Protein backbone atom coordinates (compact mmCIF):
# COMPACT_ATOMS: atom_id res chain seq x y z
CA UNK A 1 0.00 0.00 0.00
CA UNK A 2 2.84 2.36 0.74
CA UNK A 3 5.24 1.24 -1.85
CA UNK A 4 5.62 3.94 -4.47
CA UNK A 5 3.55 3.20 -7.54
CA UNK A 6 5.47 1.21 -10.07
CA UNK A 7 5.70 2.34 -13.68
CA UNK A 8 3.39 -0.48 -14.54
CA UNK A 9 0.66 0.69 -12.22
CA UNK A 10 1.05 4.31 -13.45
CA UNK A 11 0.69 2.98 -16.96
CA UNK A 12 -2.45 1.08 -15.95
CA UNK A 13 -3.99 4.12 -14.29
CA UNK A 14 -3.10 6.30 -17.29
CA UNK A 15 -4.57 3.85 -19.78
CA UNK A 16 -7.80 3.45 -17.81
CA UNK A 17 -8.17 7.22 -17.48
CA UNK A 18 -7.43 7.83 -21.16
CA UNK A 19 -9.95 5.19 -22.16
CA UNK A 20 -12.55 6.76 -19.88
CA UNK A 21 -11.83 10.21 -21.35
CA UNK A 22 -12.11 9.21 -25.00
CA UNK A 23 -15.08 6.83 -24.65
CA UNK A 24 -17.66 9.54 -25.55
CA UNK A 25 -15.64 10.28 -28.71
CA UNK A 26 -16.15 6.68 -29.74
CA UNK A 27 -19.83 6.46 -28.91
CA UNK A 28 -22.32 9.04 -27.70
CA UNK A 29 -25.06 6.45 -27.56
CA UNK A 30 -27.27 7.61 -24.64
CA UNK A 31 -27.73 4.07 -23.42
CA UNK A 32 -23.99 3.37 -23.19
CA UNK A 33 -23.46 6.77 -21.54
CA UNK A 34 -26.26 6.05 -19.06
CA UNK A 35 -24.79 2.70 -18.05
CA UNK A 36 -21.36 4.28 -17.63
CA UNK A 37 -22.75 7.09 -15.45
CA UNK A 38 -24.37 4.46 -13.22
CA UNK A 39 -21.10 2.53 -13.13
CA UNK A 40 -19.29 5.63 -11.89
CA UNK A 41 -21.92 6.48 -9.26
CA UNK A 42 -21.68 2.94 -7.94
CA UNK A 43 -17.89 3.04 -8.18
CA UNK A 44 -17.79 6.14 -5.94
CA UNK A 45 -20.21 4.56 -3.48
CA UNK A 46 -18.30 1.26 -3.50
CA UNK A 47 -14.92 2.94 -3.02
CA UNK A 48 -16.22 4.90 -0.05
CA UNK A 49 -17.71 1.79 1.54
CA UNK A 50 -14.44 -0.01 0.88
CA UNK A 51 -12.64 2.84 2.64
CA UNK A 52 -14.32 2.09 5.97
CA UNK A 53 -14.87 -1.63 5.54
CA UNK A 54 -11.86 -2.79 3.56
CA UNK A 55 -9.21 -0.35 4.76
CA UNK A 56 -10.66 0.80 8.07
CA UNK A 57 -11.84 -2.63 9.13
CA UNK A 58 -15.12 -1.14 10.39
CA UNK A 59 -17.62 -3.51 8.85
CA UNK A 60 -20.73 -1.42 8.27
CA UNK A 61 -23.83 -2.54 6.44
CA UNK A 62 -25.84 0.66 6.46
CA UNK A 63 -24.09 3.03 4.07
CA UNK A 64 -27.21 3.27 1.91
CA UNK A 65 -28.47 5.64 4.60
CA UNK A 66 -25.83 8.18 3.54
CA UNK A 67 -26.62 7.74 -0.14
CA UNK A 68 -30.28 8.44 0.58
CA UNK A 69 -29.50 11.39 2.86
CA UNK A 70 -27.23 12.93 0.24
CA UNK A 71 -29.78 12.35 -2.50
CA UNK A 72 -32.83 13.60 -0.65
CA UNK A 73 -30.88 16.34 1.13
CA UNK A 74 -29.53 17.82 -2.08
CA UNK A 75 -32.80 17.41 -3.98
CA UNK A 76 -34.89 19.02 -1.23
CA UNK A 77 -32.49 21.92 -0.72
CA UNK A 78 -32.49 22.64 -4.45
CA UNK A 79 -36.27 22.26 -4.70
CA UNK A 80 -37.32 24.22 -1.65
CA UNK A 81 -34.61 26.84 -1.22
CA UNK A 82 -33.87 27.29 -4.90
CA UNK A 83 -30.18 26.64 -4.41
CA UNK A 84 -28.15 25.54 -7.41
CA UNK A 85 -27.51 21.79 -7.63
CA UNK A 86 -23.84 22.69 -8.02
CA UNK A 87 -23.95 23.84 -4.38
CA UNK A 88 -26.44 21.35 -2.98
CA UNK A 89 -24.31 18.52 -4.37
CA UNK A 90 -21.75 19.34 -1.67
CA UNK A 91 -24.36 20.21 0.94
CA UNK A 92 -25.85 16.76 0.40
CA UNK A 93 -22.42 15.32 1.13
CA UNK A 94 -22.17 17.43 4.29
CA UNK A 95 -25.61 16.27 5.51
CA UNK A 96 -24.51 12.67 5.02
CA UNK A 97 -21.22 13.39 6.79
CA UNK A 98 -23.08 14.94 9.74
CA UNK A 99 -25.27 11.83 9.96
CA UNK A 100 -22.14 9.71 9.68
CA UNK A 101 -20.57 11.47 12.64
CA UNK A 102 -23.81 11.13 14.59
CA UNK A 103 -24.14 7.38 14.08
CA UNK A 104 -20.40 6.89 14.10
CA UNK A 105 -20.08 8.02 17.70
CA UNK A 106 -21.97 5.12 19.29
CA UNK A 107 -20.60 2.41 17.02
CA UNK A 108 -17.00 3.45 17.42
CA UNK A 109 -17.05 2.46 21.04
CA UNK A 110 -17.98 -1.07 20.04
CA UNK A 111 -15.41 -3.54 18.89
CA UNK A 112 -17.91 -6.29 18.27
CA UNK A 113 -18.49 -6.61 14.54
CA UNK A 114 -22.04 -7.99 14.87
CA UNK A 115 -23.07 -4.99 16.95
CA UNK A 116 -21.67 -2.62 14.34
CA UNK A 117 -23.52 -4.48 11.60
CA UNK A 118 -26.78 -4.36 13.56
CA UNK A 119 -26.55 -0.68 14.45
CA UNK A 120 -25.69 0.44 10.94
CA UNK A 121 -28.48 -1.65 9.40
CA UNK A 122 -30.92 -0.32 11.96
CA UNK A 123 -29.84 3.27 11.37
CA UNK A 124 -30.35 2.94 7.62
CA UNK A 125 -33.81 1.53 8.29
CA UNK A 126 -34.61 4.55 10.49
CA UNK A 127 -33.52 6.89 7.69
CA UNK A 128 -35.58 5.04 5.10
CA UNK A 129 -38.71 5.01 7.24
CA UNK A 130 -38.31 8.69 8.15
CA UNK A 131 -37.99 9.63 4.48
CA UNK A 132 -41.06 7.52 3.69
CA UNK A 133 -43.06 8.92 6.62
CA UNK A 134 -42.29 12.63 6.24
CA UNK A 135 -44.34 12.55 3.09
CA UNK A 136 -45.29 16.23 3.34
CA UNK A 137 -41.71 17.06 2.53
CA UNK A 138 -40.42 14.07 0.61
CA UNK A 139 -43.70 12.85 -0.95
CA UNK A 140 -42.93 9.50 0.66
CA UNK A 141 -43.46 6.37 -1.36
CA UNK A 142 -45.03 8.41 -4.17
CA UNK A 143 -41.57 9.51 -5.13
CA UNK A 144 -39.92 12.91 -5.22
CA UNK A 145 -39.83 14.33 -8.73
CA UNK A 146 -39.18 17.68 -10.37
CA UNK A 147 -35.69 17.78 -8.92
CA UNK A 148 -33.74 20.73 -10.41
CA UNK A 149 -31.10 19.90 -13.00
CA UNK A 150 -27.50 21.07 -13.08
CA UNK A 151 -27.28 24.44 -14.84
CA UNK A 152 -25.28 24.50 -18.03
CA UNK A 153 -22.23 26.71 -18.49
CA UNK A 154 -19.88 27.72 -21.24
CA UNK A 155 -16.48 26.18 -21.39
CA UNK A 156 -13.91 28.25 -23.29
CA UNK A 157 -12.82 26.49 -26.45
CA UNK A 158 -15.48 23.80 -26.24
CA UNK A 159 -18.69 25.76 -26.12
CA UNK A 160 -21.87 25.44 -24.17
CA UNK A 161 -22.17 22.50 -21.80
CA UNK A 162 -25.74 21.55 -20.93
CA UNK A 163 -27.11 18.91 -18.62
CA UNK A 164 -30.30 17.41 -19.99
CA UNK A 165 -31.72 13.90 -20.01
CA UNK A 166 -31.28 13.84 -23.77
CA UNK A 167 -27.55 14.43 -23.77
CA UNK A 168 -25.75 12.27 -21.25
CA UNK A 169 -22.20 13.09 -22.29
CA UNK A 170 -21.92 16.05 -19.92
CA UNK A 171 -23.19 13.90 -17.05
CA UNK A 172 -20.62 11.33 -18.05
CA UNK A 173 -17.75 13.78 -17.74
CA UNK A 174 -19.10 15.23 -14.51
CA UNK A 175 -19.40 11.74 -12.98
CA UNK A 176 -15.91 10.93 -14.19
CA UNK A 177 -14.56 14.12 -12.62
CA UNK A 178 -16.25 13.28 -9.31
CA UNK A 179 -14.95 9.72 -9.42
CA UNK A 180 -11.39 10.84 -10.12
CA UNK A 181 -11.61 13.47 -7.39
CA UNK A 182 -12.89 10.99 -4.82
CA UNK A 183 -10.32 8.39 -5.82
CA UNK A 184 -7.53 10.93 -5.46
CA UNK A 185 -8.82 11.80 -1.97
CA UNK A 186 -9.04 8.13 -0.97
CA UNK A 187 -5.68 7.13 -2.43
CA UNK A 188 -3.90 10.14 -0.94
CA UNK A 189 -5.47 9.47 2.43
CA UNK A 190 -4.47 5.82 2.35
CA UNK A 191 -0.91 6.62 1.32
CA UNK A 192 -0.49 9.18 4.09
CA UNK A 193 0.53 8.58 7.70
CA UNK A 194 -3.14 8.55 8.59
CA UNK A 195 -3.65 5.72 6.12
CA UNK A 196 -0.88 3.72 7.72
CA UNK A 197 -2.44 4.23 11.11
CA UNK A 198 -5.77 3.10 9.68
CA UNK A 199 -4.33 -0.14 8.42
CA UNK A 200 -2.66 -0.64 11.77
CA UNK A 201 -6.03 -0.12 13.36
CA UNK A 202 -7.62 -2.68 11.05
CA UNK A 203 -4.97 -5.30 11.63
CA UNK A 204 -4.88 -4.98 15.37
CA UNK A 205 -6.56 -2.34 17.42
CA UNK A 206 -4.45 -2.92 20.47
CA UNK A 207 -1.27 -2.57 18.47
CA UNK A 208 -2.46 0.66 16.91
CA UNK A 209 -3.45 2.04 20.26
CA UNK A 210 -0.03 1.33 21.65
CA UNK A 211 1.44 3.21 18.68
CA UNK A 212 -0.29 6.26 20.07
CA UNK A 213 -2.99 6.39 17.46
CA UNK A 214 -6.14 8.06 18.70
CA UNK A 215 -8.53 5.36 17.60
CA UNK A 216 -11.82 7.05 18.20
CA UNK A 217 -10.93 10.23 16.38
CA UNK A 218 -9.42 8.33 13.50
CA UNK A 219 -12.40 6.07 13.04
CA UNK A 220 -14.81 8.94 13.32
CA UNK A 221 -12.90 10.92 10.73
CA UNK A 222 -12.81 8.01 8.29
CA UNK A 223 -16.45 7.28 8.85
CA UNK A 224 -17.43 10.90 8.28
CA UNK A 225 -15.33 11.17 5.12
CA UNK A 226 -16.79 7.99 3.75
CA UNK A 227 -20.32 9.19 4.50
CA UNK A 228 -19.51 12.48 2.77
CA UNK A 229 -18.32 10.76 -0.39
CA UNK A 230 -21.36 8.48 -0.49
CA UNK A 231 -23.58 11.50 0.13
CA UNK A 232 -22.10 13.34 -2.84
CA UNK A 233 -22.65 10.24 -4.98
CA UNK A 234 -26.26 10.16 -3.81
CA UNK A 235 -26.73 13.88 -4.55
CA UNK A 236 -25.35 13.44 -8.05
CA UNK A 237 -27.69 10.48 -8.52
CA UNK A 238 -30.64 12.66 -7.52
CA UNK A 239 -29.84 15.42 -10.02
CA UNK A 240 -29.09 12.87 -12.70
CA UNK A 241 -32.19 10.66 -12.47
CA UNK A 242 -34.41 13.56 -11.29
CA UNK A 243 -36.71 11.22 -9.37
CA UNK A 244 -36.20 9.56 -5.99
CA UNK A 245 -38.13 6.99 -4.00
CA UNK A 246 -37.23 5.69 -0.53
CA UNK A 247 -36.75 2.21 -1.96
CA UNK A 248 -34.46 3.26 -4.83
CA UNK A 249 -32.32 5.72 -2.82
CA UNK A 250 -32.26 4.12 0.66
CA UNK A 251 -33.28 0.52 -0.03
CA UNK A 252 -31.20 -2.25 1.42
CA UNK A 253 -31.00 -3.69 -2.12
CA UNK A 254 -28.71 -0.80 -3.00
CA UNK A 255 -26.34 -1.69 -0.15
CA UNK A 256 -26.36 -5.32 -1.20
CA UNK A 257 -25.41 -4.39 -4.76
CA UNK A 258 -22.53 -2.32 -3.45
CA UNK A 259 -21.33 -5.09 -1.16
CA UNK A 260 -21.49 -7.54 -4.06
CA UNK A 261 -19.44 -5.14 -6.21
CA UNK A 262 -16.73 -4.63 -3.62
CA UNK A 263 -16.51 -8.31 -2.78
CA UNK A 264 -16.40 -9.28 -6.44
CA UNK A 265 -13.73 -6.70 -7.18
CA UNK A 266 -11.71 -7.23 -4.04
CA UNK A 267 -12.23 -5.87 -0.54
CA UNK A 268 -9.40 -3.71 0.73
CA UNK A 269 -7.90 -2.80 -2.64
CA UNK A 270 -8.07 0.47 -4.59
CA UNK A 271 -9.06 -1.07 -7.92
CA UNK A 272 -11.45 -3.67 -6.51
CA UNK A 273 -14.52 -1.46 -6.05
CA UNK A 274 -14.02 0.12 -9.49
CA UNK A 275 -13.64 -3.22 -11.21
CA UNK A 276 -16.57 -4.65 -9.29
CA UNK A 277 -18.86 -1.72 -10.11
CA UNK A 278 -17.96 -1.95 -13.80
CA UNK A 279 -18.24 -5.71 -14.09
CA UNK A 280 -21.49 -6.11 -12.18
CA UNK A 281 -23.30 -3.11 -13.67
CA UNK A 282 -22.36 -4.03 -17.22
CA UNK A 283 -23.11 -7.69 -16.62
CA UNK A 284 -26.55 -6.86 -15.28
CA UNK A 285 -27.26 -4.60 -18.25
CA UNK A 286 -26.19 -7.33 -20.67
CA UNK A 287 -28.65 -9.66 -18.99
CA UNK A 288 -31.57 -7.24 -18.89
CA UNK A 289 -34.03 -9.94 -19.91
CA UNK A 290 -33.18 -11.72 -16.72
CA UNK A 291 -34.14 -8.75 -14.56
CA UNK A 292 -36.09 -11.04 -12.22
CA UNK A 293 -32.92 -12.93 -11.49
CA UNK A 294 -30.75 -9.87 -10.90
CA UNK A 295 -30.84 -9.92 -7.09
CA UNK A 296 -30.75 -13.70 -7.02
CA UNK A 297 -27.52 -13.42 -9.00
CA UNK A 298 -26.10 -10.82 -6.60
CA UNK A 299 -26.88 -13.08 -3.68
CA UNK A 300 -25.27 -16.09 -5.32
CA UNK A 301 -22.25 -14.02 -6.29
CA UNK A 302 -21.74 -12.78 -2.73
CA UNK A 303 -21.93 -16.29 -1.32
CA UNK A 304 -19.68 -17.83 -3.96
CA UNK A 305 -17.08 -15.06 -3.80
CA UNK A 306 -16.96 -15.14 -0.02
CA UNK A 307 -16.58 -18.92 -0.05
CA UNK A 308 -14.25 -19.45 -2.96
CA UNK A 309 -12.54 -16.19 -3.90
CA UNK A 310 -12.44 -14.26 -0.64
CA UNK A 311 -10.12 -11.57 -1.95
CA UNK A 312 -11.98 -10.75 -5.13
CA UNK A 313 -11.35 -10.61 -8.85
CA UNK A 314 -8.31 -8.36 -8.67
CA UNK A 315 -6.46 -11.15 -6.91
CA UNK A 316 -7.66 -13.79 -9.34
CA UNK A 317 -4.44 -13.66 -11.32
CA UNK A 318 -2.43 -14.38 -8.22
CA UNK A 319 -4.73 -17.24 -7.35
CA UNK A 320 -4.41 -18.79 -10.79
CA UNK A 321 -0.66 -18.25 -11.12
CA UNK A 322 0.64 -18.17 -7.58
CA UNK A 323 4.03 -16.67 -7.09
CA UNK A 324 6.48 -19.04 -5.50
CA UNK A 325 6.52 -18.75 -1.73
CA UNK A 326 9.68 -17.43 -0.24
Amino acid at each position, binding site marked *: MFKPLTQKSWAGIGAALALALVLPLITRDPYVMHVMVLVMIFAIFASAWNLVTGFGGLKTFGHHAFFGLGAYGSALLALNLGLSPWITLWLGGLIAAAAGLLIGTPILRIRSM*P*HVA*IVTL*GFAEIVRICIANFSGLTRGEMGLWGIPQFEGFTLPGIGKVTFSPADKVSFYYLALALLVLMMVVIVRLMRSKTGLAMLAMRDGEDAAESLGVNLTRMKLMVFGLSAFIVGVAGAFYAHYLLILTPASAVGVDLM*ISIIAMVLVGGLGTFAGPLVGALVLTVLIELMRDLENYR*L*LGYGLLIVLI*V*MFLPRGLVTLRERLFPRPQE
Partner: protein
Amino acid sequence: MNLAIFIEQILNGLITGSMYALIGSGIALVYGTMKVLNLAHGEFYMLGGYFTWYLAVSLGINPAIAIPAAVAIAFCLGMLIQKLTVEYLILRDNWAFTTIAATMGLSIILQNAALLVFGANFNTVPSYVSGVMVLGDIRISWQRVLIFVVALATIGFMTWLLKYTRLGWSIRATSQDRDAAQVVGIPVKRVYMICFGLAAALGALAAAMLAPINAINPWSGMPVLLKGFVVVVLGGLGSFPGAIIGGLLLGVVEAVGVQLTSSEWRDVISFTLMIAVIWWRPWGLFGKK
Protein backbone atom coordinates in the same frame (compact mmCIF):
# COMPACT_ATOMS: atom_id res chain seq x y z
CA MET B 1 -57.72 6.94 26.15
CA ASN B 2 -59.57 4.67 28.53
CA LEU B 3 -57.87 2.16 30.73
CA ALA B 4 -59.37 -0.96 29.14
CA ILE B 5 -58.00 -0.05 25.72
CA PHE B 6 -54.64 0.73 27.26
CA ILE B 7 -54.46 -2.66 29.00
CA GLU B 8 -55.63 -4.31 25.80
CA GLN B 9 -52.78 -2.66 23.93
CA ILE B 10 -50.25 -3.77 26.51
CA LEU B 11 -51.54 -7.34 26.29
CA ASN B 12 -51.39 -7.19 22.50
CA GLY B 13 -47.84 -5.87 22.87
CA LEU B 14 -46.94 -8.84 25.05
CA ILE B 15 -48.44 -11.19 22.46
CA THR B 16 -46.48 -9.60 19.62
CA GLY B 17 -43.48 -9.57 21.93
CA SER B 18 -43.77 -13.30 22.50
CA MET B 19 -43.29 -13.76 18.75
CA TYR B 20 -40.34 -11.35 18.78
CA ALA B 21 -38.96 -13.54 21.54
CA LEU B 22 -39.16 -16.65 19.37
CA ILE B 23 -37.44 -14.86 16.48
CA GLY B 24 -34.80 -13.26 18.66
CA SER B 25 -34.05 -16.47 20.54
CA GLY B 26 -33.17 -18.13 17.24
CA ILE B 27 -30.65 -15.38 16.48
CA ALA B 28 -29.34 -15.67 20.04
CA LEU B 29 -28.96 -19.43 19.79
CA VAL B 30 -26.89 -19.21 16.60
CA TYR B 31 -24.81 -16.29 17.85
CA GLY B 32 -24.38 -17.85 21.28
CA THR B 33 -22.97 -21.11 19.97
CA MET B 34 -21.00 -20.11 16.88
CA LYS B 35 -20.70 -16.31 17.17
CA VAL B 36 -22.27 -15.98 13.76
CA LEU B 37 -24.69 -13.13 13.10
CA ASN B 38 -27.17 -14.75 10.74
CA LEU B 39 -28.55 -12.16 8.33
CA ALA B 40 -30.62 -14.86 6.65
CA HIS B 41 -32.62 -15.50 9.81
CA GLY B 42 -35.55 -13.41 8.59
CA GLU B 43 -35.78 -15.65 5.55
CA PHE B 44 -36.44 -18.68 7.75
CA TYR B 45 -39.40 -16.74 9.08
CA MET B 46 -40.54 -15.84 5.57
CA LEU B 47 -40.14 -19.41 4.28
CA GLY B 48 -41.84 -20.81 7.37
CA GLY B 49 -44.81 -18.62 6.52
CA TYR B 50 -44.84 -19.88 2.95
CA PHE B 51 -44.51 -23.52 4.00
CA THR B 52 -47.46 -23.08 6.35
CA TRP B 53 -49.49 -21.29 3.71
CA TYR B 54 -48.69 -23.91 1.08
CA LEU B 55 -49.52 -26.87 3.33
CA ALA B 56 -52.53 -25.38 5.08
CA VAL B 57 -54.11 -23.36 2.28
CA SER B 58 -52.94 -24.75 -1.06
CA LEU B 59 -52.99 -28.38 0.01
CA GLY B 60 -55.73 -27.89 2.58
CA ILE B 61 -53.99 -29.82 5.33
CA ASN B 62 -55.23 -29.31 8.89
CA PRO B 63 -53.10 -26.59 10.51
CA ALA B 64 -52.44 -28.85 13.48
CA ILE B 65 -50.41 -31.01 11.10
CA ALA B 66 -49.36 -28.34 8.62
CA ILE B 67 -47.65 -26.13 11.21
CA PRO B 68 -45.42 -28.83 12.73
CA ALA B 69 -44.62 -30.01 9.22
CA ALA B 70 -43.62 -26.50 8.14
CA VAL B 71 -41.48 -26.14 11.24
CA ALA B 72 -39.81 -29.49 10.55
CA ILE B 73 -39.04 -28.52 6.95
CA ALA B 74 -37.52 -25.25 8.17
CA PHE B 75 -35.42 -27.17 10.70
CA CYS B 76 -33.97 -29.38 7.95
CA LEU B 77 -33.45 -26.42 5.64
CA GLY B 78 -31.60 -24.55 8.39
CA MET B 79 -29.29 -27.50 8.99
CA LEU B 80 -28.66 -27.92 5.27
CA ILE B 81 -27.78 -24.26 4.79
CA GLN B 82 -25.42 -24.29 7.76
CA LYS B 83 -23.74 -27.42 6.46
CA LEU B 84 -23.26 -25.96 2.97
CA THR B 85 -22.00 -22.48 3.86
CA VAL B 86 -21.41 -21.38 7.43
CA GLU B 87 -19.61 -24.55 8.43
CA TYR B 88 -16.77 -23.78 5.99
CA LEU B 89 -16.61 -20.09 6.71
CA ILE B 90 -16.25 -20.32 10.49
CA LEU B 91 -13.07 -22.28 10.10
CA ARG B 92 -11.32 -19.46 8.21
CA ASP B 93 -9.69 -16.24 9.26
CA ASN B 94 -11.92 -13.23 8.99
CA TRP B 95 -14.94 -15.42 9.66
CA ALA B 96 -16.79 -12.71 11.59
CA PHE B 97 -17.15 -10.63 8.42
CA THR B 98 -17.45 -13.42 5.88
CA THR B 99 -20.29 -15.10 7.74
CA ILE B 100 -22.21 -11.82 7.90
CA ALA B 101 -21.62 -11.19 4.19
CA ALA B 102 -22.44 -14.76 3.18
CA THR B 103 -25.65 -14.90 5.20
CA MET B 104 -26.61 -11.55 3.67
CA GLY B 105 -26.10 -13.14 0.25
CA LEU B 106 -28.13 -16.16 1.36
CA SER B 107 -30.91 -13.90 2.48
CA ILE B 108 -31.12 -12.35 -1.00
CA ILE B 109 -31.04 -15.76 -2.63
CA LEU B 110 -33.86 -17.13 -0.48
CA GLN B 111 -35.91 -13.96 -0.89
CA ASN B 112 -35.69 -14.03 -4.66
CA ALA B 113 -36.12 -17.77 -4.85
CA ALA B 114 -39.37 -17.32 -2.91
CA LEU B 115 -40.35 -14.55 -5.31
CA LEU B 116 -39.80 -16.85 -8.30
CA VAL B 117 -41.55 -19.82 -6.75
CA PHE B 118 -44.48 -18.20 -4.93
CA GLY B 119 -44.81 -14.86 -6.77
CA ALA B 120 -45.14 -11.37 -5.35
CA ASN B 121 -48.64 -11.83 -3.91
CA PHE B 122 -49.49 -11.25 -0.28
CA ASN B 123 -50.79 -14.55 1.02
CA THR B 124 -52.87 -15.02 4.13
CA VAL B 125 -53.92 -18.04 6.11
CA PRO B 126 -57.35 -18.15 7.77
CA SER B 127 -57.38 -17.87 11.56
CA TYR B 128 -56.73 -21.16 13.32
CA VAL B 129 -59.35 -20.35 15.93
CA SER B 130 -62.19 -17.87 15.69
CA GLY B 131 -63.94 -15.63 18.16
CA VAL B 132 -62.88 -13.11 20.73
CA MET B 133 -61.99 -13.56 24.35
CA VAL B 134 -63.87 -11.06 26.49
CA LEU B 135 -62.66 -10.17 29.98
CA GLY B 136 -64.76 -7.27 31.20
CA ASP B 137 -63.96 -4.44 28.79
CA ILE B 138 -60.89 -6.14 27.41
CA ARG B 139 -61.31 -7.97 24.14
CA ILE B 140 -58.59 -10.09 22.56
CA SER B 141 -59.10 -12.49 19.68
CA TRP B 142 -58.59 -16.15 20.48
CA GLN B 143 -56.11 -16.28 17.62
CA ARG B 144 -53.86 -13.92 19.58
CA VAL B 145 -54.39 -15.88 22.76
CA LEU B 146 -53.37 -19.02 20.87
CA ILE B 147 -50.22 -17.26 19.64
CA PHE B 148 -49.27 -16.41 23.19
CA VAL B 149 -49.95 -19.92 24.47
CA VAL B 150 -47.88 -21.49 21.71
CA ALA B 151 -45.05 -19.04 22.40
CA LEU B 152 -45.06 -19.82 26.12
CA ALA B 153 -45.13 -23.55 25.41
CA THR B 154 -42.23 -23.21 22.99
CA ILE B 155 -40.18 -21.15 25.42
CA GLY B 156 -40.91 -23.72 28.10
CA PHE B 157 -39.87 -26.53 25.79
CA MET B 158 -36.64 -24.78 24.78
CA THR B 159 -35.78 -24.03 28.40
CA TRP B 160 -36.30 -27.69 29.29
CA LEU B 161 -34.27 -28.76 26.28
CA LEU B 162 -31.34 -26.51 27.17
CA LYS B 163 -31.39 -27.30 30.87
CA TYR B 164 -32.11 -30.99 31.10
CA THR B 165 -31.32 -32.82 27.87
CA ARG B 166 -28.04 -34.13 26.53
CA LEU B 167 -28.44 -31.95 23.48
CA GLY B 168 -29.13 -28.93 25.67
CA TRP B 169 -26.03 -29.56 27.74
CA SER B 170 -23.93 -29.84 24.63
CA ILE B 171 -25.37 -26.57 23.26
CA ARG B 172 -24.69 -24.70 26.49
CA ALA B 173 -21.23 -26.19 26.81
CA THR B 174 -20.37 -25.30 23.20
CA SER B 175 -21.54 -21.73 23.62
CA GLN B 176 -19.51 -21.27 26.80
CA ASP B 177 -16.26 -22.77 25.58
CA ARG B 178 -15.97 -24.34 22.19
CA ASP B 179 -12.54 -25.91 22.72
CA ALA B 180 -13.49 -27.39 26.06
CA ALA B 181 -16.66 -28.78 24.51
CA GLN B 182 -14.61 -30.45 21.80
CA VAL B 183 -12.28 -31.89 24.36
CA VAL B 184 -15.03 -33.59 26.34
CA GLY B 185 -16.16 -35.23 23.11
CA ILE B 186 -19.02 -32.99 22.05
CA PRO B 187 -19.28 -33.08 18.25
CA VAL B 188 -19.23 -29.30 17.95
CA LYS B 189 -19.97 -29.25 14.24
CA ARG B 190 -23.13 -31.24 14.76
CA VAL B 191 -24.15 -28.91 17.59
CA TYR B 192 -23.72 -25.95 15.25
CA MET B 193 -25.86 -27.61 12.64
CA ILE B 194 -28.62 -28.44 15.09
CA CYS B 195 -28.57 -24.90 16.50
CA PHE B 196 -28.99 -23.45 13.03
CA GLY B 197 -31.87 -25.86 12.47
CA LEU B 198 -33.48 -24.97 15.80
CA ALA B 199 -33.16 -21.26 15.03
CA ALA B 200 -34.79 -21.78 11.64
CA ALA B 201 -37.56 -23.81 13.27
CA LEU B 202 -38.23 -21.10 15.88
CA GLY B 203 -38.46 -18.47 13.13
CA ALA B 204 -40.76 -20.67 11.07
CA LEU B 205 -43.01 -21.33 14.05
CA ALA B 206 -43.35 -17.59 14.68
CA ALA B 207 -44.30 -17.12 11.03
CA ALA B 208 -46.81 -19.96 11.13
CA MET B 209 -48.51 -18.50 14.19
CA LEU B 210 -48.56 -14.98 12.76
CA ALA B 211 -49.65 -16.05 9.27
CA PRO B 212 -53.37 -15.34 9.94
CA ILE B 213 -52.49 -11.79 11.09
CA ASN B 214 -49.50 -10.76 8.96
CA ALA B 215 -49.66 -11.52 5.24
CA ILE B 216 -46.74 -13.50 3.85
CA ASN B 217 -44.71 -12.15 0.96
CA PRO B 218 -41.12 -12.63 -0.21
CA TRP B 219 -40.00 -9.48 1.61
CA SER B 220 -41.47 -10.24 5.02
CA GLY B 221 -38.16 -11.59 6.29
CA MET B 222 -36.11 -8.39 6.40
CA PRO B 223 -38.29 -6.38 8.84
CA VAL B 224 -38.53 -9.42 11.07
CA LEU B 225 -34.76 -9.87 11.01
CA LEU B 226 -34.27 -6.28 12.13
CA LYS B 227 -36.79 -6.74 14.94
CA GLY B 228 -34.92 -9.86 15.96
CA PHE B 229 -31.73 -7.80 16.13
CA VAL B 230 -33.39 -5.27 18.40
CA VAL B 231 -34.45 -8.14 20.65
CA VAL B 232 -30.99 -9.64 20.95
CA VAL B 233 -29.41 -6.25 21.54
CA LEU B 234 -31.85 -5.61 24.39
CA GLY B 235 -31.23 -9.02 25.89
CA GLY B 236 -27.51 -9.24 25.20
CA LEU B 237 -26.30 -10.92 22.01
CA GLY B 238 -26.21 -14.68 22.38
CA SER B 239 -28.27 -14.95 25.56
CA PHE B 240 -31.33 -17.17 25.22
CA PRO B 241 -33.15 -15.95 28.34
CA GLY B 242 -32.12 -12.41 27.40
CA ALA B 243 -33.81 -12.80 24.02
CA ILE B 244 -37.06 -13.98 25.64
CA ILE B 245 -37.21 -11.02 28.02
CA GLY B 246 -35.98 -8.66 25.30
CA GLY B 247 -38.74 -9.85 22.96
CA LEU B 248 -41.54 -9.33 25.48
CA LEU B 249 -40.11 -5.97 26.49
CA LEU B 250 -39.88 -4.80 22.88
CA GLY B 251 -43.48 -5.83 22.27
CA VAL B 252 -44.70 -3.73 25.20
CA VAL B 253 -42.49 -0.74 24.39
CA GLU B 254 -43.76 -0.74 20.81
CA ALA B 255 -47.38 -1.01 21.96
CA VAL B 256 -46.97 1.98 24.28
CA GLY B 257 -44.94 3.91 21.69
CA VAL B 258 -47.54 3.38 19.01
CA GLN B 259 -50.23 4.62 21.41
CA LEU B 260 -48.26 7.81 21.92
CA THR B 261 -47.42 8.36 18.22
CA SER B 262 -48.83 6.30 15.39
CA SER B 263 -48.23 2.88 13.93
CA GLU B 264 -46.03 4.11 11.10
CA TRP B 265 -43.39 5.07 13.69
CA ARG B 266 -43.36 1.63 15.28
CA ASP B 267 -40.08 0.54 13.67
CA VAL B 268 -38.37 3.88 14.24
CA ILE B 269 -39.19 3.57 17.95
CA SER B 270 -37.68 0.11 18.23
CA PHE B 271 -34.52 0.90 16.20
CA THR B 272 -33.93 4.07 18.19
CA LEU B 273 -34.33 2.08 21.39
CA MET B 274 -31.79 -0.41 20.06
CA ILE B 275 -29.19 2.24 19.23
CA ALA B 276 -29.73 3.84 22.63
CA VAL B 277 -29.15 0.49 24.34
CA ILE B 278 -26.00 -0.15 22.33
CA TRP B 279 -24.76 3.28 23.33
CA TRP B 280 -25.56 2.85 26.98
CA ARG B 281 -25.19 -0.89 27.63
CA PRO B 282 -23.66 -2.69 24.64
CA TRP B 283 -23.74 -5.99 26.50
CA GLY B 284 -27.54 -5.82 26.86
CA LEU B 285 -29.97 -4.64 29.50
CA PHE B 286 -29.69 -7.72 31.69
CA GLY B 287 -26.30 -9.22 30.94
CA LYS B 288 -23.08 -8.49 32.72
CA LYS B 289 -20.15 -6.69 31.19
